[in-house]
């Protein structure tokens, strides 16, 4: 395998995952929380594909494609919620959304 070995890719994946976790914990705008969630999922994807290359097994890539489909579904529902909140004039701040009543 040319270039860096899989440990370097795993370090990048761990850093991406923590960056996304920081965004999810820190930011209050639900859209940026969703974007940070995408970064976390991509960190997981990078680790899956790195191990898939390391072990020579294609199952990791199948996992990564499934994760991408789940991420697309999650974005559809999350953005639908954001648009619905915006239509009902609810403040887009995850710290203020502490009741489940519409």
């Amino acid at each position, binding site marked *: *395998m*040319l*270039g*860096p*070995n*899989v*440990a*370097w890719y*795993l370090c*990048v994946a*761990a850093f*991406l*995952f*923590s*960056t*996304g*976790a*920081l*965004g999810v*914990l*820190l*930011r209050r*705008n639900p*859209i*940026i929380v*969703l*974007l*940070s969630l995408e*970064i976390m999922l*991509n960190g997981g*994807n990078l680790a899956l*594909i790195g191990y*898939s*290359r*390391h*072990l*020579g097994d*294609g*199952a990791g*890539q*199948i996992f990564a*494609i*499934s994760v*991408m489909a*789940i*991420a*697309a*579904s*999650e*974005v*559809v*529902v999350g953005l*639908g*919620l*954001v*648009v*619905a909140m915006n*239509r*009902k004039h609810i403040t*887009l701040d995850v710290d203020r959304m502490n009741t489940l009543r519409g």
Partner: protein
Amino acid sequence: MTLVASAGNVLVWIVWIGAAFACLGSGIAVVSFSNPFFSALALIGNLASLAVLYLLLSAEFVAAAQVLVYGGAVMVMFLFVIAYIGPQQESPWAGGPSWQAVGAVLAAGALLIEIIVVVGLKASGGLAHSAQLGHAFGSPAEIGRLFLTDHLLAFEVTSIVLLVAAVGGVILGAHSRREHWGSAGSDALRAESTRPG
């Protein structure tokens, strides 16, 4: 022969360093921009540099799907919604560090150290030598063969999940629209009933 191999090695290292730093930098940019529009644009750069890393890991089909699905469809949806609800500035670092911000940074740093320690303790010895690959590894034909033989259940469940997500999106949109119409209709009725004469 070894000269060619080492030149290729150096080239792959250079591409890797560029893609990895672009990936990490744009990830930090997504988290720290105050305008969600700029965050979404930084996420597009993040996804593109991740596609380069996938290509270096000989996952060609996943890289293409990443650019098409994420960089194309999902990000267009994000940008549409951000343009729809209008700009909302939020500065995460304004007003000095709050206990929430300190706690978030501590938790994320603990997560990073934890992952690296676990991977380093458990797997560092076996990570140096990777398996030899066949020519078909990561090609669309190989991915399709795996999806339709070994991972057929995951394929079918994914299609059901996508269907449920589409129905959920339609319900979320239609629900608020019906309420909107309902409130407009009741306003009209109220106006009708309070009209004098």
